């Protein structure tokens, strides 16, 4: 089976600091992949290199049969790669519905070739907000939202681009147990609808229940890749997290 995302030996430096050191990984269509690692291990840098926010110096990223090298972030979004940000970054002066309208106008609209009708956009916004449980705040501004609602908006906006692969960067940090369950259920529903998901998370219970496969990064290197149960028992992973 050909993989949806193929990251081939990518490296990224910030001055003298090596943030990513020859990472290679594959993601299959429809997969739920967990990506973990201690703080500063390069998870977000990897996401940024995959999504085009940062450009990697070495190696290449292939997505859906095309090479992504040199493409700007918006071009990768057009090709079906979507992400949420670790710290929610809503458009503060736009209402929730308008926040979702941006990726629809600029990604879905362009991809389909036929202009989306205004009514369709309206309906689609309402559907997405209902899916994340924000339908009653359609006309509110992001500043009226709570932390968990903000994260839901972030996910809804990533969804609005109708991606093939979605990367959720720490969508659950700082949330309560029931709120984490809520977000997890949401991500699983998205996966069932056919979207491949990479989940980056520190909360192990969430990662373990969600992931079909787990990848561990430590200081910019991939040290484990496999079934979650096996990976967490891997001596090298244990050492990275707990020490000798």
């Amino acid at each position: 089976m050909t993989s949806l995302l193929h990251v081939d030996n990518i490296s990224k430096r910030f001055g003298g600091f090596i943030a990513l050191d020859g990472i290679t990984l594959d993601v299959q269509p429809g997969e739920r992949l967990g990506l973990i690692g201690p703080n500063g291990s390069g998870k977000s840098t990897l996401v940024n290199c995959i999504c085009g926010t940062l450009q990697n110096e070495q190696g290449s990223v292939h997505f859906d049969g095309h090479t992504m090298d040199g493409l700007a972030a918006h071009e990768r979004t057009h090709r079906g790669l979507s992400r949420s940000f670790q710290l929610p970054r809503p458009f503060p002066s736009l209402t929730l519905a308008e926040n979702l309208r941006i990726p629809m106008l600029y990604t879905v609209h362009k991809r389909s070739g036929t202009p989306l009708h205004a009514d369709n956009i309206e309906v689609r916004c309402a559907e997405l907000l209902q899916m994340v449980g924000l339908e009653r705040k359609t006309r509110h501004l992001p500043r009226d939202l709570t932390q968990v609602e903000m994260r839901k908006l972030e996910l809804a906006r990533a969804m609005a681009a109708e991606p093939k692969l979605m990367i959720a960067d720490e969508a659950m940090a700082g949330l309560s147990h029931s709120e984490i369950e809520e977000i997890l259920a949401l991500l699983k529903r998205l996966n069932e609808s056919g979207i491949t998901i990479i989940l980056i998370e520190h909360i192990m219970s969430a990662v373990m229940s969600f992931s079909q496969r787990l990848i561990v990064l430590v200081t910019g290197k991939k040290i484990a890749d496999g079934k979650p149960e096996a990976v967490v028992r891997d001596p090298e992973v244990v050492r990275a997290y707990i020490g000798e």
Partner: protein
Amino acid sequence: MPLFTVLAVVVALAAFMLLRIPNIEYLFVAGYTIVQYIVLATAWNILGGYCGYVNFGSAAFFAMGAYSTVALATFGNQIDEMVPESLAPFFHLIFPLPIPVLIVFGGIVSGIVGFGTGYLTLRLRGAFFAIATLALSVVLATLVVNWDFVGGSGGAYVVRPGEFPLLGSYVQYLFLLMLALAVIAVVAARTIERSRLGYGFAAIRDDELAAEASGVPTLRLKLVATTLSGALMGMAGAPFPYYIGYLQPAGVFGLEYAVNSIAMPLIGGTTSWIGPVIGTILLGTLQQVTTVTISSAVNVLIVGVLLIAFVIIAPNGIVGLVQDRLRARRQK
């Protein structure tokens, strides 16, 4: 024609007719300045208000429009010396160019300058972008001061015809042209605001990284904004030499244009087309009244005081103040 365009034209024509009733030439002279600032403020707002990129170089774009007119007028006066004899009759036929053509020409020149500036500076953000536009203004002013063809540091005279057919005075004709330009600028701004482009601009203003991640081609959109904004400013500047008669680099590149183009949208409100219009009518009228009653030097003081007052009382301008009130009432 869409309803809004019709309304804008009707309002503009009504303003023109109203000013004709007292039949005082000075009203058109003052009115021209105010309407010219509607164009400048609206143009500034496309980049500054919609995209969030503060341009301190409005004077440069305005001056480019004005100086393209001067260059063409000077060329028109020197046709016999500058073109081969065989072509001279043809040029004599089309020169002097009518002002609407000069406006289009000024728009093209400033649009190109806007595109170039955008390409060079848009990787900069915030204060750095603002400083770069200010630098552009200084560079272009130096260029003009050292270019004798357009008058150099001594400035340039443009002799305007005394009368215009049908309307009578030439100032009325210039005022009417500027009104038309204001209608075009306002209709363009409002159309952008409600279009796909407008949503893209708003996303850039709010969060560029998130905009990119949502598929917005930020660099391309910013180039559209700088080009459009520059072109409109140039169009506002093109008839200026005919209005003022004597164009001086120090005047046309002056701080007054840059500061007013920023202050007017800020006072009115930057997120909507109506903000710059309200801000200009308020501030512009106030300036004209004080120029006549007190002194033109007080203008700058008024702008300063009002800006400080608005930053404290209504940071989102008059429109923002009203919107906040309405939203608060709706949520009660």
